C-alpha cells in the first residue's frame, strides 16, 4: 500500500482536453491502474475501451419520505427542515432534500421513512491495453458528494495492491468542489491541464491553490497552446513562480476528435504529430517526477 503512487489529472475549467491527455498517458504508462473520477460525466472509458469485469452498486445518500396516511399534520418537519424540501401538503421534494434526517428524527409520530437507494455503479474493468481501469457512472442528477469518487479511488488502490502495480492514474472531475477534493486528498502528484485563455488562467490559479492546499506535487500542462501564445507564456511563468513543474505545451490538435470517434488516443491516430511527440516528452518528465518522490 505504501509504495503505490497516485497521480491525479485535473483541470479546474472543463473541456481543456484533460481526458484525452489522461488516455494518452495511460496508454504509455503500462504498469498502472487507471481510475476515472469524473463520475457525473465519465469519458475515459470511451478511449480505453474496456471490458467490464465486475459492476458494483453505489448506494447514495438517504432521502426522507413521509407516509401521508399516518401523518398527523403537526408541522414539526416543515419547521425543522432548513432546505425547504417539504411542501405544505407534507410531500418531500427529493431534489431539495439534503438527507439531513432532521424530519426523520424529530417527527413525533415517527412516520418519516429515511432510506438510501441505488445511485450509480462502479465498474472494474480491463482496458484494451490489458491494464485495469475503474470508472463509475452516477445516475443523472444524483448527489455527487465525493463518496462515489472515494469508492472509485479505493477500488483502484485495492486493485493496484492486489496486483502489485506501483501506480494509479486518476482522471479528476472539473471544478474545485467536493468531488475534486475527494479525488485529490492524499494523492502524490497533481497534473493540471489548462488552456491559454482568460478563463483557463483564472481557473488555474484556483486549482493550483487547491493542489497546494493538499500538499501534492503540482505539474502544469498547457493544451491548445498556440491559440494564444501570450497567455501560454504567462501560464508558464505563473506555474514556475508557484513552484510547479512545467511539463510542456501541447498544440491545438484537430485530430483529437478523430481519435475520440475511433475510441483511441492521439498516439494511435497520429503517432508522428507534434502533439504525440510532446505527450511522450510529458510522459518521460512524469516518470522522473515519480522517481524523485
Amino acid at each position, binding site marked *: 500500500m505504501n509504495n503505490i503512487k497516485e497521480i491525479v489529472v485535473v483541470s479546474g475549467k*472543463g473541456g481543456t482536453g484533460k481526458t484525452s491527455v489522461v488516455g494518452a498517458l495511460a496508454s504509455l504508462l503500462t504498469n498502472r491502474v487507471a481510475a476515472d473520477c469524473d463520475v457525473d460525466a465519465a469519458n475515459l472509458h470511451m478511449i480505453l475501451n474496456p471490458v467490464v469485469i465486475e459492476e458494483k452498486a453505489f448506494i447514495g445518500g438517504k432521502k426522507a419520505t413521509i407516509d401521508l396516511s399516518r401523518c398527523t399534520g403537526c408541522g414539526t418537519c416543515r419547521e*425543522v427542515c432548513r432546505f425547504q424540501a417539504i411542501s405544505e401538503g407534507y410531500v418531500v421534494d427529493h431534489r431539495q432534500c*439534503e438527507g*439531513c434526517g432532521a424530519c426523520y428524527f424529530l417527527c413525533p409520530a415517527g412516520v418519516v421513512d429515511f432510506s438510501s437507494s441505488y445511485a450509480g455503479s462502479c465498474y472494474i474493468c480491463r482496458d484494451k491495453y490489458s491494464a485495469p481501469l475503474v470508472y463509475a457512472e452516477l445516475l*443523472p442528477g444524483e448527489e455527487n458528494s465525493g463518496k462515489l469518487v472515494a469508492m472509485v479511488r479505493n477500488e483502484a488502490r485495492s486493485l493496484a495492491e492486489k496486483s502489485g502495480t506501483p501506480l494509479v492514474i486518476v482522471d479528476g472531475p472539473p*471544478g474545485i468542489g467536493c468531488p475534486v477534493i475527494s479525488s485529490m486528498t492524499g494523492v502524490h502528484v497533481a497534473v493540471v491541464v489548462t488552456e491559454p485563455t*482568460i478563463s*483557463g488562467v483564472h481557473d488555474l490559479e484556483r486549482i493550483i491553490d487547491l493542489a497546494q492546499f493538499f500538499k501534492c506535487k503540482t505539474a502544469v500542462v498547457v493544451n491548445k497552446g498556440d491559440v494564444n501564445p501570450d497567455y501560454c507564456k504567462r501560464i508558464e511563468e505563473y506555474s514556475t513562480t508557484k513552484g510547479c513543474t512545467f511539463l510542456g505545451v501541447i498544440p491545438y490538435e484537430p485530430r483529437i476528435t*478523430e481519435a475520440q470517434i475511433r475510441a483511441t488516443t492521439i498516439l494511435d491516430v497520429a503517432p508522428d504529430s507534434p502533439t504525440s511527440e510532446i505527450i511522450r516528452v510529458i510522459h518521460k518528465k512524469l516518470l522522473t517526477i515519480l522517481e524523485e518522490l
Partner: protein
Amino acid sequence: MPVRVWDAGREEEAGWAEGPSGLLKNASALSVEKDRPTREVLPASSKNVRSAEPRWYGRRQDRSMNIVIASGKGGTGKTTIAVNLAYFLARSGQVVQYLDCDVEEPNGHLFLKPRIESQVSATVMVPTIVEKKCNFCGECSTKCQYNALVSLPGIPPLVFPGLCHGCGLCIHVCPENAIAEDKRKIGRLEKGVGLENISCVHGVLNVGEAMAVPLIRKVKDCGLDNCVHIIDAPPGTACPLVATIGDADLAIMVTEPTPFGLHDLSIAVSVAEKLSIPLGLVINRDTNHFPPLERYIEKHSLDVFTRIPEDRRIAEHYSKGDIIISALPEYTSRIHDLVSSMERVSGTTIIGGAV
C-alpha cells in the same frame, strides 16, 4: 443576506427601466436592429415543442424568466453562449441579469466585465458546542448524517465545519441545550454592472470548500424581478446542476459533435427531462459531421436552437475575453436564431416582451 439591495429607483437611475442607454446608439454597428426578431408569438407547431403554454409567469410572482445555459461536459462553450446571449438581449432592449452559478470556476464576469460594486460573504451555519453544558452523551454525533461531529469519551464532541451541512439537527437533539450556532464563510458573492448595463452576480467558492450548492442557491436568490436571468450552470450532471436548473423556464444545452460531448449531453438532457424543463441544444464547433449526435437528436426529438461553426477566430477572441458577436458581428445572426428558437419553444416573446 445581501448588503446592498437593488431597488427600483436605482434601476431607473441606471437607465434600466428604459432599456440600455449610451452604447445603444452604436447598435447599428452590431446590426441588432435589423436582426431584431418579430414581436408576435410564433405558433406552437411541431412535435419539437416541449411546452406550448407559457411557463414564464407560472412559477414566480414577478415577470422574469430563468434561462439556464448548461452543458454536461465542461468546455463546450457554455459561457461563450451565455455571455453572448446576455449581450444580445441587452442590446435589443431587454433588461438582463447574468447569474453565474458556476461557483467553482466563475468566468462570465471575465467577458461581461462588471465593475464590482458589492462583495458579500456567503455563509452557512455551523454548530459550536457550549462546553460547560455538554454532558458528552453523544446524541448529536450519532444523529449527524455527515460525520461533522465526532464524540470521544470524556470531552465535548469535535466539530468538523468542512463536513457540516448546517442542517441544525444536532441543536434539536441535544438534551442539554449545549449547541449554539455560528456563521461560517464558504465564499463570496460579487455584484456589479457590466457591458450593456447587464447586472452581473457571481459566487466564488473558497478554495478547499466543498459546499457548492448553498452558494449556488445564494447566487440565485440575487435574481432581480422583471428581467431575463441568464444563468450559467456548473459543469457536470449531479446535484449542482439540479440546484441550478430546478426552477428554470428553459434550458439551453451546449454541446459539441464529439463522442464525449454526446455522452455527457445525454446525461444532462435526462436531468432536464426528469425535472420537466423545456430544452433546446446549441451545437458548438459544428464542423465535423458526427452522425451519432444527429441520430440522438432525432430519436429524442430535440430542438437544435442554433449551430456555431468551428472557427479559430472565435477561440482566439474567447481566449482574450472578448464578446464574440461584438468582435465578429457576422455571428450575431446565430444568436438571433437562438433567441427566435427560444421564443418558439417557450411560446412567448423574449425581446421587448417581458417588461
